[in-house]
């Protein structure tokens, strides 16, 4: 496997006519993790959406050496349909990601987030934390090299946070890259931090 890496240079993000951050550069090699910190509105989510390719960068360049479709993204919303069961949800997202998602793979993904036993219950009966866990279970399917997690711990209980930390460590051990935004301190060995407030642009009075 060739070394995958993510490289950003002089990124700037414009949102609602306001520069959220500018001059942002970083480089992530295989197995590395980057934790984004900063106050609300400092552009953590914007940066993750930008890296995912959902929004274009206002300035700067972004290089991702992985194949197209090798990025897995978790936003604020869980993309969980109330009418589908967790099993159907995972089967759908697994198939959309091009992964062979047999029953065994889905069982494993559900077990990884502790949702085994709830697999045939419509998602409308799941709690917010359980939905979040289901959204995180998607990452077990497919071959994504780059994980982008926006507040992954939202609504998670302590055991689930520990499971998430272990999964991130396993993903990194396998050469994967993780970028996550969080307000909750997570135990991630050797993760680098990026404080987005350092790249904030001062308002220039006209």
């Amino acid at each position, binding site marked *: 496997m060739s070394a995958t890496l993510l490289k950003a240079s002089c990124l700037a993000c414009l949102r609602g006519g306001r520069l959220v951050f500018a001059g942002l550069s970083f480089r992530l090699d295989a197995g590395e993790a980057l934790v984004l910190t900063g106050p609300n509105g400092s552009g953590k989510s914007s940066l993750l*959406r930008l890296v*995912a*390719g*959902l*929004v*274009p960068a206002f300035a700067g360049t972004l290089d991702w050496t992985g194949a*197209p*479709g090798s*990025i897995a*993204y978790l*936003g*604020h*919303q*869980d*993309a*969980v*349909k109330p*009418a*589908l069961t967790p099993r*159907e949800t995972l089967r*759908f*997202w697994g*198939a*959309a*990601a*091009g992964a062979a998602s047999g029953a065994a793979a889905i069982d494993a993904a559900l077990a990884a987030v502790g949702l085994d036993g709830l697999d045939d219950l419509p998602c409308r009966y799941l709690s917010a934390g359980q939905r979040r866990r289901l959204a995180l279970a998607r990452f077990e399917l497919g071959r994504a090299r780059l994980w982008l997690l926006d507040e992954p711990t939202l609504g998670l209980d302590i055991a689930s946070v520990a499971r998430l930390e272990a999964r991130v460590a396993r993903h990194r051990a396998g050469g994967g890259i993780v970028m996550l935004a969080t307000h909750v301190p997570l135990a991630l060995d050797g993760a680098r931090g990026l404080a987005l407030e350092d790249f904030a642009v001062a308002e220039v009075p006209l």
Partner: protein
Amino acid sequence: MRAFLVLLPRDLRLALRSGGDVAAVLAFFVITVVLFPFGVGPETVLLGRIAAGVVWVAALLATLLALDRLFAQDYEDGSLDLLVLSPLPLEATVLAKALAHWLLTGLPLILLSPVMAAMLGLEARVWPVLVLSLLLGTPCLSLIGAVGAALTLGARRGGALLALLILPLFIPVLIFGAAAVEAAATGLTARPHLLLLAGCLAAALPLAPIAVAAALRQAQS
């Protein structure tokens, strides 16, 4: 191709589980058609003359009813972000979703249309042309409607905006569709009108998904 296998079962399952939607569209179609005899009076000759136009307009409005939800739910719950990011080509995803919309609205409308035509007193020999015109026309409505649904994503009062945006674009389809039935009813050949409808479909089939995909990517930012 894979996009169809992945998205079609999901969208159909979602629509059938949440129920209601398909039934509401069909009920709307039936009620709209039924309103006309009350409005214009029970003259069989007059109703028979306007039957084709009435069924077509009712089908068009019923199609519109379900359109604003085509992408809205996926947009609101974050699924759309993931669909845009997935390795499936977005154009194929869009086409699959439009096909699901047609299977859930257009197809049942077509199956009901002879009943409605009979109720309005349209001659039985014209029914096949009506069905054929709807068979060619309603997929156009779903495809053109998808463009509007994508463009109005995230807009306040998107439903009203969608109708304003899309109804004028439905006019050519309506003209050719109603004209085909009209021609058949007066003993002329419906062929040129049906060919023009087929032309609309042939244009919408490749072009609409491209436009929708572009609009959806735009809606992300």
